[in-house]
């Protein structure tokens, strides 16, 4: 029997395949399509302190091999999450990772404090790709200083594994990953969406309401792999790889490059069973290559 289980900064997963934040709702929406118990874990839609309505439409536009979105962190807020969403998640036999977002460091802290005593949460993932109101809208993880600050703040408020999710829209992502590590993050997950844009030449308007938005899907995979490689090379911290993963081959590219686990994002919109399929493909790959454990593959790229 091949062992797909892994451990990331204190978080034990039965396999390295997670559903990415914002692409799997709170689990329940796909429950009739997916065997949720099969997944390594579910990362929730970003939770903020107050409920948020999100941005006006259009929020989504399809591009060649990619997707551009500007959802605007529409979510039920931390109280709504605890009341309406968490009970179902507790019933699922998989790791529940609550993704936390905010417009200021404070907000991250308050959400985590509110969640800390709730049962059935296995880890937090901090969405440091949302705009920091104090810093003129720069994303939190675009600055090592801000990354450190907010990571420390939250670190002091929780004993649960703490994952910092990084934006790719930076000069050197390894600097940010190092800042997160040194401030107490147990792992980093990357990448969040690239800043992207599309224009309707007939109407001469941007195709999404916020002009620029988050670019995801197969088109960003090469960028995501390069970012994972950079962090793996320069910082000693467990990595969760994200970006354009559509199948087991994609997942293996990330694992070989140094990711201990991966998250499936946009692919869930097309087939919410992608995670399950990837698990089967990983199993199969290990089998065909005579491996005992998926862990033998992590970072085993031959340079």
């Amino acid at each position, binding site marked *: 029997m091949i062992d797909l289980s892994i451990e990331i900064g204190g978080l034990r997963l039965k396999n390295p395949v997670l559903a990415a934040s914002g692409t799997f709702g709170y689990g329940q929406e796909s429950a009739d399509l997916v065997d949720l118990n099969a997944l390594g874990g579910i990362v929730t*839609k970003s939770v903020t302190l107050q409920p948020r*309505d999100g941005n006006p439409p259009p929020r989504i536009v399809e591009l*060649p091999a990619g997707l551009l*979105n500007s959802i605007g962190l*529409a979510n039920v807020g931390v109280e709504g999450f605890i009341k309406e969403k968490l009970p179902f998640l507790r019933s699922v036999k998989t790791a529940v990772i609550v993704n936390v977002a905010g417009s200021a460091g404070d907000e991250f802290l308050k959400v985590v404090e509110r969640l800390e005593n709730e049962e059935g949460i296995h880890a937090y993932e901090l969405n440091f790709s949302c705009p920091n109101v104090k810093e003129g809208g720069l994303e939190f993880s675009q600055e090592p200083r801000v990354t450190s600050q907010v990571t420390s703040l939250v670190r002091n408020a929780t004993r649960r594994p703490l994952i910092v999710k990084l934006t790719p829209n930076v000069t050197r992502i390894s600097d940010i990953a190092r800042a997160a590590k040194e401030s107490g993050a147990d792992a980093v997950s990357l990448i969040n969406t690239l800043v992207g844009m599309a224009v309707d030449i007939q109407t001469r308007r941007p195709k999404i309401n916020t002009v620029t938005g988050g670019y995801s899907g197969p088109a960003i995979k090469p960028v995501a792999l390069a970012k994972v490689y950079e962090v793996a090379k320069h910082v000693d911290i467990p990595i969760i790889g994200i970006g354009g993963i559509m199948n087991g081959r994609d997942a293996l590219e990330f694992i070989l490059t140094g990711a201990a686990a991966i998250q499936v994002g946009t692919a869930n919109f097309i087939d919410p069973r992608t995670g399950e399929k990837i698990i089967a493909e990983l199993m199969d790959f290990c089998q065909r290559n005579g491996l005992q454990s998926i862990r033998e593959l992590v970072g085993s790229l031959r340079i």
Partner: protein
Amino acid sequence: MTETFDRRKGIYDCPILSVKNLSGAIYLMRLHSPAIAQSVHPGQFVNLKVNDEFIPLLRKPFSVCRRDQREGWIEVLWKIVGKGTEILAGCRAGELLNVLGPLGHGYTIRPELELAILVGGGLGVAPLPFLCEEILKAGKKVEVFLGAKSEPELALVPEFIEMGVEVFVATEDGSVGNAGLVTEILIERLKRSLPQRVNLFSCGPTGFLNRMIQITESFNLEGQMAIETMMGCGFGICVGCPVRVRDPRPGERLYKLTCIDGPVFDAREVILSD
């Protein structure tokens, strides 16, 4: 609305039974899908992956146009407007198509209904044949109003006639039926005598639906309309398909989601924008 829909959806590789080019760029496809045929409600939709490629990346949503529970098929009607609909038009009987559905909140047929007026603008006719069948089955009276730019854009008229309902047609160029907008002949009709409990069931482009909202209000009727927005997933996980709630009460959400709260909404419930 009170009826609760069975939300159990599935993903199926469905054999294509037939693809017909009805006229111009308009196509009708029949898919073998007993599970969906069984449980789908009028106004619900299916989300089709037109190929196994990354272009187009997403599924494409289409209303269920007709279904046969006994034979286990559903039909979708579409017009070629881009790559996805073009690829669909190139599909052949015998091939498999990956279908996610049934999805969304459909039309509600109230027990107390006396007359159902179905109004389709352009390809908005798509969900109406199925709806018509179900209303007739419920023993209610149906009148159908269809509008299109021009005759070749007018689909499914014979299908309604076959069901034995009255069909009123308007084309903008007058190539068939009344010359003008379908909403104009609808207004003429509404000015004439009506039973107590009339429901307007509509589907079509935004401009048309906004007119339908006005008509629903000025005649003080109940109206249900199926709307379209961009969709990332079709089942509530991407939050990419918001539609503005008309008068949100304090604490209420500003947006509903077309894919799970809709695509059928009460005409007084939402604000449509392009």
